């Protein structure tokens, strides 16, 4: 199974990719959060800078990037790249 998701980039990640959002087709599902991150890294190698300091948000829920964490995706699901927060 694959899904066509909408990926949102914020803060530093938007700067590194040059994008605020993009559609990504044919994302395998279920997928580990690690593989999902690697897939985004392949599209945008500059995201490497954020490695180990970034989390994802899938359908507005934080998902840590770790091998154990599996994510099920549906078409049009929102996936966000979340660099370290700095609100307040």
């Amino acid at each position, binding site marked *: 199974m694959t899904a066509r998701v909408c990926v949102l980039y914020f803060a*530093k990640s938007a700067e590194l990719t040059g994008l605020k959002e993009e559609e990504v087709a044919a994302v395998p599902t279920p997928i580990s959060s690690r593989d999902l991150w690697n897939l985004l890294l392949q599209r945008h190698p500059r995201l490497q800078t954020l490695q180990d300091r970034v989390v994802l948000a899938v359908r507005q829920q934080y998902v840590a990037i770790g091998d154990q964490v599996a994510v099920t995706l549906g078409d049009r699901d929102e996936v966000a790249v979340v660099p370290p927060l*700095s609100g307040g």
Partner: protein
Amino acid sequence: MSVEQRNVLKLCHDRLSVQEVVDAVNSDSCGATAVFIGTTREDEVNGRKVVGLEYEAYKLMAQTEFVKVCADIREYWPAVVHICVHHRLGWVKVGEASVVMAISSPHRHDSHQAIQHCISQLKAKIPIWKKEVYDTQEVSWKENSE
């Protein structure tokens, strides 16, 4: 006695009004309102002067996370009546408020403790980011330590 409880998060590009946030938590049942105002500080980083901050947010998710933060606060401090947070987006120059929050409760200890928790949780959980902008035109994305 059942009291209506409000949880309000507003993200906006306009200057923040302390009075508006305080009014939003006003209640005849509350003797105490705790308020926190976060302001862009004058600062120097490696010889560059900070002239302001540029904020952005994942708006929908910010609301989702704010609901969780409020639920959390109400679990620890059930006496809390209203919670209101206004957070600025876009350009905020030195000396202007980037966040104003207020929490009301019948007695002061609840709102006092709750507001500290609210700031920590906002910094840790709510998807908002800022970059510092220097007088050299350079910028640097910030990272909350907490």
